[in-house]
C-alpha cells in the first residue's frame, strides 16, 4: 500500500522543528498575505520562502512534482484576473470583450504571486512534517483532545487504503458488467454505485479499526505519550522566521506604497 503519511528519507533541518512552531509560522505568513492584494508583499514573501526550500529538504523539481496543480491554479487565477478585472492605465492587449491593461495586469500578477506565496508555505510544511509528529504536537502542546487527534490520524491511514479499494471495486464492478461506457447519465449512475460500494467498505473497515483501537484501551481519560513533543531553540528560530517574513512582506509593500487591504 502506498502511504503518504510516512516521511522517509528527508533529514533536512526543518524536519527536526516542532510541527506546532512550523504551523504557527506558516499561519502568520498566510494571514498577512491574505490581507492585501499587491504584488510587492507577495513577491517578498515568495522570495523568502524559496530561500527556505533547502532547509525543508525541498528542491524546485520536488516542488513542481508535488505542487503542480496548485502552481497551475495560481497561474490560471492570475491570468483570468488580468483578463476580467476592470481596466485602468494603458491597454496592452485587446481581443474583443477581453482586454488586458496595465492596471489589470498588475492585479492579475499580484493575484498569482499571492496564490503561490500562500500555497508554498503549506507545501513546505507538509514536506518536512510527519503527520504522527504533528498529531503528537497538537495533542501534547496545543492541548487538543487526544481522542479527536489520534482518531483523525488513524482514520487518515485508511484514506490511502480506500484509494486502493476504489480501484478494486471499479474492476470488480466492471467484472459484473457495470461499465464506464455509455451516456453521461449511465456513467453517473455507475460512479454513484461505485461510491456506495466504497462507502460500505469504508464503514466496515472503520468500525473494525475502532474495535482494534478500543481493544487496545483507547478512549480513556488519561494516557501517556511514548513520543514526547518538545520545543527546542530551533523552534524559536522557526517562529522568528515566520514573523520576519510576514513583517518583511508588510514593510516592503508599505515602502513601495502598494499595500491595499482586501476588505
Amino acid at each position, binding site marked *: 500500500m502506498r502511504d503518504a503519511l510516512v516521511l522517509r528519507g528527508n533529514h533536512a533541518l526543518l524536519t527536526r522543528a516542532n510541527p506546532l512552531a512550523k504551523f504557527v509560522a506558516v499561519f502568520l505568513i498566510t494571514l498577512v498575505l491574505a490581507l492585501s492584494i499587491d504584488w510587492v508583499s507577495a513577491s517578498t514573501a515568495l522570495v523568502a520562502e524559496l530561500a527556505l526550500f533547502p532547509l525543508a529538504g525541498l528542491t524546485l523539481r520536488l516542488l513542481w512534482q508535488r505542487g503542480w496543480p496548485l502552481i497551475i491554479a495560481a497561474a490560471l487565477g492570475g491570468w483570468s484576473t488580468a483578463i476580467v478585472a476592470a481596466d485602468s492605465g494603458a491597454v496592452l492587449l485587446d481581443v474583443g470583450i477581453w482586454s488586458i491593461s496595465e492596471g489589470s495586469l498588475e492585479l492579475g500578477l499580484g493575484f498569482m504571486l499571492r496564490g503561490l506565496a500562500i500555497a508554498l508555505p503549506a507545501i513546505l510544511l507538509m514536506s518536512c512534517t510527519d503527520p504522527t509528529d504533528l498529531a503528537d504536537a497538537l495533542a501534547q502542546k496545543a492541548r487538543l483532545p487526544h481522542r479527536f487527534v489520534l482518531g483523525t490520524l488513524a482514520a487518515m491511514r485508511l484514506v490511502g487504503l480506500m484509494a486502493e479499494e476504489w480501484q478494486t471495486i471499479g474492476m470488480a464492478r466492471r*467484472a459484473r458488467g457495470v461499465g464506464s461506457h455509455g451516456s453521461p447519465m449511465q456513467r453517473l449512475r455507475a460512479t454513484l454505485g461505485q461510491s456506495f460500494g466504497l462507502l460500505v467498505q469504508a464503514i466496515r473497515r472503520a468500525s473494525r479499526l475502532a474495535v482494534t483501537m478500543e481493544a*487496545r*484501551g483507547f478512549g480513556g481519560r*488519561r494516557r501517556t505519550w511514548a513520543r514526547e513533543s518538545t520545543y527546542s531553540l530551533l523552534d524559536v528560530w522557526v517562529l522568528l522566521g515566520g514573523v520576519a517574513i510576514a513583517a518583511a512582506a508588510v514593510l516592503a509593500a508599505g515602502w513601495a506604497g502598494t499595500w491595499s487591504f482586501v476588505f
Partner: protein
Amino acid sequence: MPASDAASSAAGRPAAVSARGWGWRHAGRSTPAVQGLDLEISPGERVLLLGPSGAGKSTLLHALAGVLGGDDDDADESGTLLIDGAAPRGQRGRAGLMQQDPETQVVLSRLGDDVAFGAENLAVPREEIWKRVHEALDDVGLRSLAGVGLALDHPTSALSGGQKQRLALAGILAMRPGLILLDEPTANLDPAGVLEVRDAVARCLDKTGATLVVVEHRVSVWKDLVDRIVVLQPGSAAGSAGGTGTPGVLLDGPPDQVLEQARGMLMAAGVWVPGYVPATRVRTRAEEPAELLLAAQDLAVSRERARRRGFKTIPPVPVQSGITAQVRAGQALTITGPNGAGKSTFALTLAGLLAPVDGKVSAAVGLSDGAGIDPFAWKAEQLISRIGTVFQEPEHQFVTGRVLDELMFGPRHLGHGEERVDELLERLRLTHLVDANPYTLSGGEKRRLSVATVLAAHPKVLVLDEPTFGQDANTWAELASFLSELLDAGTSVVSVTHDEEFSAVLGGTELRLDPASRSGSRQEAGAA
C-alpha cells in the same frame, strides 16, 4: 480506582474467565447472538473455540475484550461474564484482541508507534513503554526486518499480512494482558503467514503464560497449541433449526478427545478437522485436447497506472514480467506462488480488468466472437459474457440490494440467460435467500452468491482470486465440485490459489510466479 491502575496492578498475570448464564443480543436484532452460556476458563488455559457460524463466537470474544455495548443502550445482556471476577469493560488492557482483517489491526504509520499505542492508552510511563515495545517486537520476531536491525520507524503499510498480524500481537503484548483473544487471526493469510502467526503466538504464550481463547475453523493449525477445545452450540439460531435445544456448550475437553467424539458432527458443520479432505466430484474429461481461448504473451503487470509528475508520464514498475500462459476450454490453470509475486495482478490483467504494462493478452476467435482481440478494450457487457471474474472479497462485486436482482443483473444487461438463474440458485443452495440483502449473508453464502452472479452471464472463461480463502469445509467442497463440473462442461477455470487440495480437484496446469528479483519489490498484503 481508575481502570488503568486496576489493569497495571494485574499486568501480566494470567486471567480467569467465567460465564454464567451469559447472553447477548445486539442492538437492532430480535434474537440474541449468545444465550445462557456457561463456561469457566482457568488462568493460563489455552482454548480453541469451535462452532457453526451464528454460534456467537465472535460476540463472546468481543465481550471479553470489553468492546461490546458501551454507548448503545438498545443491546441486551443477560447473566454474567467476568474476567478475574470483574466485568471486562472496566478492565482496559486486561485482554487483548486480534481480528481477522490485517489492514485494520494496524493503528499507526510507524512500527514502534503502533506497538506503543496500547501501552500509551493504559498510561504506562514512557521509559517502560519503550522497554515493552522492544521486548514485544523481539517476541513476535519483528525486531529485525529484512536484516536492517531494529526498525522502529519502519512504515507499517509495507508489512505483509502475516507481519501485520504479528505486529498486532506485539501491540497486544505491550499492554501485558492476562488474556489473549484471537478472532480468526489467520483466515486472511497465505500458508506461510498462517504458520508465522501461529508460531509467534505459541512463543508469546510460553513466555507470558497468558490465557488464550482462539476462534478458528482450521483446527489443525491450533490443535497442538491448545489444551482444550470448546464447541459452542448455535445460540438462538438453534431455535430455527428445530426446537429450543439447550444452548451453550455442546462439547468441552482435551483436543484429541473432543475431536474423536465430535468428528462426524464437526465435519458436518464444515469445520476443518485435521486429516479431513471433503469428498469432491472427480473430473471426467480432464485429458481431452482443447481449444485455445486466451493467451498471455511476455506479459508485464502492475496494479498501478501510469503516473503524472508535472508534464511527465511515468509508467508503473511491473510487479511481475515475462509471463506467458495459455487458457484452454475445459481446462484449469492454477496460478501459485508466494505473496507479492503478482498473482492476482496477473489474473486481473488476463481477465481484461487491468491494462498490461508490457506484452499482450489476446483472445482467440472462439472467445472474442467479434469483440476484438484485446479483452481490456472490451465493453463491460462484452466482457462478462466472455470472461467472468470472481474477486476475493465478494462484497466488492455486489451491485444490488437483493440476492435475486444480483443474479438477474448480468442476464438483464445482456438481454438473455435469465432462465439459467433458477438452476444456479438451486445448484448453489441460494433459493431460500432470494429476497435477502447480499451484504447480510454469511461468508460461505456470499462466496456462493459471488460465483453464481458471475456465472449467470455464462462466460467461457472463469477467473477466481483465492476462492477458498477463509471458507469452511462444506463451502469448499461444494465450490470445488461445482467448478469441476463446469470444467467438464467446457468452461475454462483460471484460479489464483494457495490451496493445493483445491487445485488437485481441478487438475490442469500450474503457473508458478515468484517475486520479481528487483530489490524493494512491492509486498502484496494478504488481502491483495
